[in-house]
């Protein structure tokens, strides 16, 4: 199901709530069908297609975003539940052209192959490191258990999360912050 339509005309339930939500720093106001999932609102109404849908059952975590700073699977949140909230997606975590340490670490540790799970994996990992600033191998594996990756076997993701955690708590490797351009030319 999606929210791309404005189904006010022929829908049986004529009450279409309006929501105000701040996504990646921009405020939006939209009428949304009550059944609309947050992920469909992001992708199809706002065009925030960096966040993706990987399953129907909240198992894969590919759609993970931050809702008021907490990682959520945006397929388990209704768009109306985000009313009045701030949502951060993969498209909103870089500081201008400077990548978030987690993005940089996934690149440097080869924590992605096809990259489809990556937005959700990065968003979940940022939240994990917020809770556990210095996670052990085991804590990373348990912490990202709700995000499935079919390509990497997870080992390099674990390394990436630990490298980013070090950088985020100020114990980084000292490498310069990466930019979009630098990664593209890596």
């Amino acid at each position, binding site marked *: *199901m*999606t*929210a*791309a*339509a404005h*189904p006010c005309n*022929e*829908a049986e339930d004529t009450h279409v709530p309006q929501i105000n939500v701040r996504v990646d720093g921009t405020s939006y106001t939209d009428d949304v*069908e009550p*059944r609309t999932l947050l992920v469909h609102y992001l992708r199809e109404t706002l065009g*925030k*297609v*960096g*966040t*993706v849908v*990987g*399953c*129907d*059952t909240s*198992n*894969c975590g*590919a759609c993970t975003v931050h809702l008021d700073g907490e990682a959520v699977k945006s397929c*388990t949140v*209704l768009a109306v539940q985000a009313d009045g909230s701030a949502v951060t997606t*993969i*498209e909103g975590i*870089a500081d201008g052209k400077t*990548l978030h340490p987690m*993005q940089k670490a*996934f*690149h*440097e540790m*080869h924590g*992605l*192959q*096809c*990259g*489809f*799970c990556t*937005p959700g994996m990065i968003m979940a990992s940022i939240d994990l490191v917020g809770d556990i600033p210095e996670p052990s191998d085991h804590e*990373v*594996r*348990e912490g990202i*258990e*709700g*995000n*499935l*990756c*079919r390509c*990497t*076997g*997870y*080992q*390099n993701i*674990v390394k990436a999360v630990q490298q980013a955690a070090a950088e985020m708590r100020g114990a980084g490797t000292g490498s310069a912050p990466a930019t*979009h351009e630098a*990664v*593209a*030319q*890596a």
Partner: protein
Amino acid sequence: MTAVEDPTSTASAPEKLVGQARLRKEDARLITGDTTWTDNMTLPGMLHLSVLRSPVAHARITHLDVSGALDSPNVLAVFTGRDFAEEQGSLPCAWPVTPDMVNPGHPSIAVEEVNHVGEAVAIIVGRTKVAAQDAVEKIDVDYEPLPVVLDMEEAVKDGSPLVHDHTSSNTSYHFVFDAGDAGTGGDTEQAFADAEVTVSRRFVQQRLIPAFMEPRSVVVQPSGDNYTMWSATQIPHILRVMAAMVTGIPEHKLRVIAPDVGGGFGGKLQVNPEEILCLLVARRLGKPVKWTETRSESLMTAHHGRDQVQFIDIAADREGNVKGLRVRLLADMGAYLRLITPGVPALGAFMFPGIYKIPAYRFECDGVFTNKVPTDAYRGAGRPEATFAIERIMDELAVELGMDPLELRRKNWINAEEFPFTTVAGLQYDSGDYGKATDQALQLLGYDELRAEQQRRRESNDPVQLGIWFSTFTEMCGLAPSRVLGSLAFGAGGWEQASIRMLPTGKVEVVTGSTPHGQGHETAWSQIVADELGVPFEDVEVLHGDTAISSRGLDTYGSRSLVVGGTAVVKAAEKVVAKARRIAAHLLEASEDDLEFTGGKFSVKGTPGAGVGIQEVALAIFAAHDYPEGIEPTIDAEATFDPVNFSFPHGTHISAMEVDTETGFVKIRKYASVDDVGTIVNPMIVEGQMHGGLAQGISQALYEEAIYDADGNLTTGTFVDYLLPSAADLPHFDTGNTVHPATSNPMGAKGVGEAGCIASTPAVVNAALDAVRHLGVSDIRMPLTPERVWRAIHGGGDGGDRATAGTNAYGGASTETSSGVSTEASSLGGDK
């Protein structure tokens, strides 16, 4: 594996990029969300498709009323099989493995009859996906049930109900490879008659689901009589040819684009019913259309993999010299033959002898129809099945002989000095050293220490027992020499194409026919071209996946990209340099023979300083003011590479498994592998491919199984039920390499994409058996669920099944179907 090695550059030679762990170019868009997945596409006026799918496995459609859906808001059209019966043709099967193979035809949408759960019955075209989806349940269908055929061993018996009533049996083909007849080995029956020891086993390769993370998605845009299709596919080139042949759209009027593709693993090596249906609907309506599957549609209708029952016999003398091997397979085709459905088990025929010198060998395979979704390629495609069987039976033979299984392997494997070696299956293995890889893997694992711990646990009767075991494997990869494919009746060649365009500013466009979906071609090809042309890595752009840009190609599967596609890139670069040399000689007023080319610069031997860079040559020939008479003003070049042989990676994988004898829970304690994939272009990417392959191979051993109930319902139709391992379910992998270059390509590279997946499954199962063999357990059926392991330990046999009655693995277990059970608690949010 050490990711970065010091380049062995000398002062004069420029630093080579091949061999370096360069970070990936393609990451930039993938880590920021700037991606172009097919489902991201929106086009003006685009319509959305949803598909009504059969809820029954085998039935005649007796009544189909779509009026309710047509009356739904925002629904523009509804199509059934009857609407497309005259124009849909049959989905292609490119691999008729025998001349008399029975192909019942594969409609994209059912017309009279459905043959598996999930088969398309009607298509709804809506203004939005919501509108199309909402209308699905407003279609009224009556089905007259037909007998459901699920179990292969039953299906091949005389008198079995038929999947297709216009065929005479459920057997599609009977494929035989006999080394005696082929002249590559002795008489197999004689070898068994003369043998001092024979061991026979029946192994089950359960049905798996590729489960790529990006669901399939298709967009078709008509424009006059031209069509552009975007699809989440591994094979845009093959798809274009096949879709043109199926629909009658002329090939030159059809452009296929694979944008960012989120994994495939063979699962997107297909011409899908929905790809054809999108074309048919777009042609009928003259409007752009999109279809994106849900995960449950994906698990239910995208092709599955594996699903074989293997009967394997091995013959030897008392000293452990293997004398013969005999294999009989039942391979589940599912309800139809898709692109290479019949070829997958047949390809395995050549790998059952593994790394061993076996004097006699016979292989027979029956392809069997059942009322399930078709099987087709899944990572390894025929080779994991073969490797599993040979590595398991070697252990069973060792037990029978009372011999150390590693000793048995050493006694029979091909020795390093015997390469190139022609096997009993007729393949010529290129290079390797099985002993060296094995020794290195033993060291990496800490073998002796773990064996000592195993001994302690045995003696103390520890409830958690430890097992340590091997898989020593090889595989054929780099599909494939076109003549070999021709001899196997495959419908295409195995060459690959590349072209290199030298732009006026000195930048380089590399066009490859091998379309990636996570493998890192953009990075690896840039490394190759940077070395060949001496241009900066950053100056190379790799273009792929669009038939309008990359006009010739055979795409990505079978661990072929680097060894075939990468070699085409090397060949094209060599031609660019040769063409540039003539221009450079002209510009430098020197003889071509006096020029040397190093670090991207042509210079006259013995005249340091003077020279011209290849990027300058590109500008000069673009201007074309001054170039030799009689040649074209371009240094662009293209090349097509057709390999003369496969390449044969090999390796030794060792798994240490803990088995809790009280709960049946198995856990990987340690995993070490040493692989030989020839010359390595990017060690970081190679290690990543190994990790991913290991995860999938281990997952076959421990977690994954597509299960059908007695009515043919897939009961593992969501990620709740089909267990993909999470980070918490997989161990740390210790990986290493030996390097014996391939001899079939100039880089010396061997394929790596499938190696981990092929080798790991038997290593894990063998190790788990090693933990409990002293308790009387000689086999446990995959996946090694706690239930099965517990049953094997406490009840004997191979653990029976958690499988429900519709699977080939069904052995009379009492697990009931869960289909159709819906409770308040199980209802998903939003469902009414």
